[in-house]
């Protein structure tokens, strides 16, 4: 149920985002979604790609430090309160969210969010118990192909 997310360290200055994206594009790897977290001095680029192991290798060979993290994709109702409801569940179970970001595509009336949990396995269990839909890798890939 967990997804592999790639993270890259970037300096926060013009032009730094282009280079790693070009490196994986050259290998024909499509980015399903990304998020960029930044401070005044540096940033972290987080990527969800289909062939994460190949992308990781390509980036590392090009000299980037790449970190692999397990994240959880959750399918939520795309309407007011949809996210709040999910967060309430997580809060009730004392699950700590390190960070989250929205997936770039929607499916019907659903929006997909990516969560980085301290404890992803327990988070999945809680979400499933509460009847939320956790999107696994294969299902995610099927949306974009």
């Amino acid at each position: 149920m967990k997804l592999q997310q790639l993270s890259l360290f970037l300096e926060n200055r013009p032009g730094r985002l282009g280079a790693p994206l070009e490196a994986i594009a050259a290998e024909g790897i499509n980015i399903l979604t990304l998020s960029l977290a930044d401070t005044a001095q540096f940033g972290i680029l987080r990527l969800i790609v289909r062939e994460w192991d190949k992308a990781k290798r390509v980036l590392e060979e090009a000299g980037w430090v790449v970190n692999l993290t397990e994240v959880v994709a959750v399918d939520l109702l795309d309407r007011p309160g949809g996210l709040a409801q999910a967060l309430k569940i997580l809060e009730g179970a004392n699950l700590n969210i390190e960070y989250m970001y929205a997936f770039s595509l929607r499916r019907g009336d659903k929006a997909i969010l990516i969560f980085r949990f301290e404890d992803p396995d327990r988070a999945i269990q809680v979400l499933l118990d509460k009847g939320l839909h956790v999107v696994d890798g294969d299902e995610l890939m099927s949306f974009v192909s």
Partner: protein
Amino acid sequence: MLTELWNDAEGGFHPASAPDFLPGSALREVQLRRLRAVVARAYKNVALFRSRMEERGLTPESIQSLADIQHLPFTVKTDLRDTYPFGLFASPMSDVVRLHASSGTTGKPIVVAYTREDVEVWSEVMARTLASCGLHRGDILQNAFGYGLFTGGLGAHYGGETLGATVIPISGGNTDRQIMIIRDFNVSALCCTPSYFTHMIERARELGVDLRELPLRIGIFGAEPWTDGMRRHIEAEAGIKAYDIYGLSEIIGPGVASECSAQEGLHLFEDHFYPEIIDPETGEALPDGEEGELVLTTLSKKAMPMIRYRTRDITSLITEPCACGRTLRRMRRIGRRSDDMFIIRGVNVFPSQVEAALLAVEGTLPHYRIILTRDQGLDRMAVEVEVTPEVFSDKIKALEDVRTRLAQAIEHILGIRVELRLVEPRSLARSEGKAKRVIDRRNEGK
């Protein structure tokens, strides 16, 4: 006859300066006599030196000529650290009248000692330094070197009084007051670090004080390397002659060498400090004129003799006669050091100290470099560290934590603030040979 030159307004001859003009042969005789005495003294009183002599099968009698100095063991900065605090003293504490200290390679200071006689010699060589820079009795000397454990302040103070100048012991800092006193006290000479004086020039301009219109005519600058470009800037902006002086605490403090009116190299006071130039890699002595590491032996120090002390400063000796008439050999101005040590805000910093801090936090040594800049007369230090897989995280907070811990570890060791920047892997230039760890941009544009 020499005393007729007393108080010569042209360039200032002081009786203490007499050895500056000794014929070479007489100087060599003085040097050999003093060398034999200091080696005997160190052998008798300093265990580290004696054991190193014995390892080589040497005794003080092995020194029969000045050339025999090459057989003696070197002394290095870590010897002072390893014997901290008093292990290299050759006098009982009851004969020591002064202690000074400066920063060492691991954060622990090195301690230096002076007997009453040592203080007299120090006062003499500093008087000769000031005379060589054109000061004489009647000059008003504003001493903006720091007073305290640092040798600069008290060294220049005693030298100025010995010369017969009027010394204003203002010490460093409080720039507005410095400028007020230069103007109100008719100060004719000033000593401090060259970077601090450039700051004074800027501040004086902001305050509407034109230094060129004041009686100030001489600046004596030392304690850090500075360029000829900086000298031209200082001389033009302040309307003074700017002289370079050289010294180090381990040897005596300021007063080891000084420029003269010719401003073409620094005369070494070699009746007290015997200079050699060696190849820093092999330790072999190099012929006069070749560039290498300056090695100094204190010929008359009592409390803490230094035998063949490796200064890490790179220079060469000039043996040609000088236009000023001094017979003392000159050394070229120090442009660089054989290690990467640099001085920032009066603190000696070795890249190895920064490495120790990085290593303590990361567990492995990342690629890094140190960048020194100057902003409105204030030196700033930044450390760029390449992100390694060991510390990289997908969480901002974790990376900020790493950054903070690295900065704090460095600040803890050095005692000065640093700006720490995380940079991308492989973004710092790799060099073929020795890595260039320190980028000094402090004198750019000057």
